[in-house]
């Protein structure tokens, strides 16, 4: 069953990606992998060696792979840690596929999808020399709950026994959920219900396999041994992070954990984005994490074009609107906002149409379940949508505001206080003022804005936020962000910021998730229809699909971009 749906999924993702490719100028200019579809090029011994220097403004918190939830460190974990499964390490659309990692093969599915059986590969060692055993596997899953991983309740609550572990994490035992046999190296995972996305969840860093004696609390800055091609040597969050080759690593599956090229990876913290750009231009660093400041884009795009790589992300910038308080508890007001915003202007603020595309649907282009429609462009409406966004319609927006009876009300727009977000915010404020509101801009420190806008106690009316996928499944966008279960009033963790809860649509979403277990194609079609139904009510305003710009130094070669984890760090060649 799993194999069939795998090839189906592969076909589907391919189909969607191809359609996305034709609709926009996806893709890199500049140095590119010479990869065959589906695999990295063969390992080239002569290019191994050297020190890769990465720079970022700041570190990303804890180094513990089961707790850290940032793209910054997930990118590094790809080279240091492994789970039973992994996302294929390759450039291009196949990077959305799941391949076996520490497991010998994709699991056997039985019991109507509720039981997955894996066989652990033998002979793999942690970076401290010890062998990986099935006991380590069981302990790692229990550890997810013991350390209160952010996704313990969201992603891994389907494992039998998880509910008890969530209640009393300290003594978490998954004796029935994860049954292991040391003699045969078999791991049997029992779920309370079939889950179409379980394979993705097992490929995320939160499901990393760690030694059984890893500390039962957040490891913080102390590295935990892993099985990857690299190991973390040291971590000082104010200074630098160092990775070195894992002495005990022998490549067992090039698709999931390829051997790396640099001997050492040094990630320095502390430079501002402008300084990072200068550092790379002056050959003092090889790659920067932070976005290129707006005033350097043209310069780099002209003078350093072959050092720039641009890729579309399965992500979105959007405006959650509070559906429960004025003025956006009125659907006409929300639709007015959707009609009024000029996505082209916002794309311009982001850096131009080579760096972003206007968006109208909740699921981004190229994502499973995406359907092409747009109700909120000039000449279209919810009954006769267009296929894509073209132009704003200010007149209609003003009319809707008047009809809604919310004309003249005060609106506070909460944004992060970094440059790009503030610029977007100023533009949005300008537009809201034009259609008849009294809008004020409220910039808040980037570090607390995300939790601030989730808590209903703060009475946030409208805010600017971004969402990047966890894994390629429609529910990761639609259900997680707009499901009734994701809304908890009065809590800092209530990711359904709009407070949107439509019981009918919620039922449809849950049905679609169940349908995906047996028929992914039909499920994705249903997600597309759900998307349209949701956007008819306009709980949010979707703005654009961003692209990622990677700026590399002149000496770096062999750039590969995984759609799941972005640039493959260990594959960069610096010699």
């Amino acid at each position, binding site marked *: 069953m799993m194999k069939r749906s795998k090839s189906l999924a592969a076909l589907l993702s391919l189909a969607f990606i191809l359609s996305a490719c034709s609709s926009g100028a996806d893709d890199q200019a500049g140095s590119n992998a010479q990869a065959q579809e589906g695999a990295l090029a063969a390992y080239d011994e002569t290019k191994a060696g050297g020190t890769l220097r990465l720079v970022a403004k700041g570190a990303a918190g804890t180094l513990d792979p089961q707790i850290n939830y940032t793209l910054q460190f997930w990118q590094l974990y790809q080279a240091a840690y492994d789970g039973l499964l992994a996302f294929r390490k390759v450039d291009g659309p196949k990077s959305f596929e799941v391949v076996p990692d520490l497991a010998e093969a994709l699991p056997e599915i039985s019991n109507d999808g509720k039981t997955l059986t894996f066989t652990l590969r033998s002979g793999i060692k942690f970076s401290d020399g010890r062998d990986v055993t099935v006991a380590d596997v069981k302990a790692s899953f229990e550890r997810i709950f013991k350390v209160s991983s952010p996704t313990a309740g969201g992603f891994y609550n389907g494992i039998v026994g998880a509910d008890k572990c969530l209640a009393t994490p300290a003594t978490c035992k998954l004796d029935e959920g994860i049954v292991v046999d040391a003699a045969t190296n078999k791991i049997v995972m029992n779920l309370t219900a079939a889950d179409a996305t379980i394979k993705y969840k097992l490929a995320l860093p939160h499901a990393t396999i760690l030694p059984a004696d890893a500390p039962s609390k957040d490891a913080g800055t102390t590295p935990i041994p892993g099985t990857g091609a690299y190991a973390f040597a040291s971590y000082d*969050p104010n200074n630098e992070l160092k990775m070195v080759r894992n002495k005990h690593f022998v490549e067992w599956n090039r698709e999931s954990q390829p051997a790396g090229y640099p001997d050492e990876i040094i990630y320095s913290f502390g430079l501002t984005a*402008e300084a990072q750009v200068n550092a790379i231009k002056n050959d003092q660093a090889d790659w920067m994490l932070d976005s290129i400041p707006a005033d350097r884009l043209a310069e780099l795009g002209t003078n350093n074009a072959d050092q720039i790589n641009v890729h579309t992300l399965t992500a979105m910038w959007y405006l959650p609107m509070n559906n429960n308080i004025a003025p956006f508890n009125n659907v006409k007001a929300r639709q007015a906002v959707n009609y009024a915003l000029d996505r082209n202007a916002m794309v311009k603020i982001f850096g131009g149409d080579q760096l972003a595309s206007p968006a109208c649907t909740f699921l981004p282009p190229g994502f499973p379940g995406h359907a092409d429609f747009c109700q909120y462009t000039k000449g279209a409406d919810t009954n006769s949508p267009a296929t894509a966004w073209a132009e704003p319609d200010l007149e209609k927006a003003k009319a809707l505001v008047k009809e809604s009876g919310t004309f003249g009300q005060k609106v506070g727009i909460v944004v992060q206080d970094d440059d790009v977000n503030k610029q977007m915010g100023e533009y949005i404020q300008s537009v809201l003022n034009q259609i008849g509101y009294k809008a004020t801009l409220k910039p808040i420190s980037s570090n607390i804005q995300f939790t601030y806008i989730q808590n209903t106690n703060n009475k946030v009316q409208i805010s600017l936020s971004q969402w990047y996928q966890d894994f390629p499944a429609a529910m990761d966008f639609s259900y997680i962000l707009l499901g009734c279960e994701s809304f908890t009033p009065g809590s800092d963790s209530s990711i359904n910021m709009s407070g949107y809860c439509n019981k009918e649509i919620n039922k449809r979403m849950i049905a679609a998730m169940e349908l995906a277990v047996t028929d992914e194609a039909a499920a994705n079609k249903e997600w597309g229809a759900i998307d349209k139904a949701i956007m008819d009510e306009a709980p949010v305003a979707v703005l654009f699909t961003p692209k990622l710009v990677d700026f590399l130094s002149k000496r770096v070669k062999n750039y590969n971009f995984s759609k799941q984890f972005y640039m493959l760090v260990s594959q960069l060649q610096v010699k």
Partner: protein
Amino acid sequence: MIAFIAKRLSAAIFVLTSISILVFLIFFATPGVDPAARIAGRNASQETLAQVRATFDLDKPLPERYLSMMDHLFLQRDLTSYVNRGAEVWPQLIQAIPATLSLVIGASIIWLILGIGLGVTAAGMRKSWVDPAIGVVGIIGVSLPVYWLGEVVNLVTQGRLHDTAFNWVPPLGYVPLTENPGQWFLSLLFPWLTLSLLYAGIYIRVIRGEIVGLMQEDFVKTERAKGASEKRILLKHSSRMSLITVVSLFGLDFGALVGGSALLTEVVFGIQGVGRLTFTALQNFDLPLIMATVMYAAFFIVIANAIVDVLYAWLDPRVRRG
């Protein structure tokens, strides 16, 4: 003498305690800074949130949390960050000290030399064009926002002219003195100049103003009557008396800078000093680190003030009785 020290000690403790309490209260009075959700991670379930609360004692009443934090900060010295979990706060702070000290001591030497030298010159040559010219230099120094100046300096030395005139400028960041004295000096050169410009401007004006005022004092007139030359009066007597103002200003400024108030300079030039640490802590709303850096800064303010008072008494005997 002992009574004096005891008085100063109790005053210091009073100041530090009040500041710590104020910081604590302000932090938790601010909506949205509750660390539980940020620590728990994005989209954490409510049970996870509750667990994190319990682990970090965030469900206990405020006074208990305050005392617990102070205990971990000062007595056990194992207080850990809310944001970089597991990272102890004291080692982070201690690591950052040499960078700030290097920056501040170097800059203060430059601005004292410039300030006193040019200030005295301006006062002495106040009938010529030199005085207003130096005055303009001073004013410009006072009027430039430090972070703006730093960015412009970077624009020139790291960006536009890096390949030509400024290719000897090392990349941004701090190189420890023990590691490479040459690079240490070069990497701090522009931060020194940038930081000292503002203070030099202030000191030039203050010293010049003080001296000019003092030149009219009675005791100076006595010296003149005795036949001393203007130059001698200037150098010997007026300079000494104007030191009072300079000393008190310098005490405040140096104390504040060592404690980390050069934070914008450190941020712009990528120097991993105490100021930068404070800035990062504030941006991250990382209470343990905020508390540690604020206490550290406050400590230096208080010490600096105490030293200034002692020097005051020494320089102006009339004050000792006060």
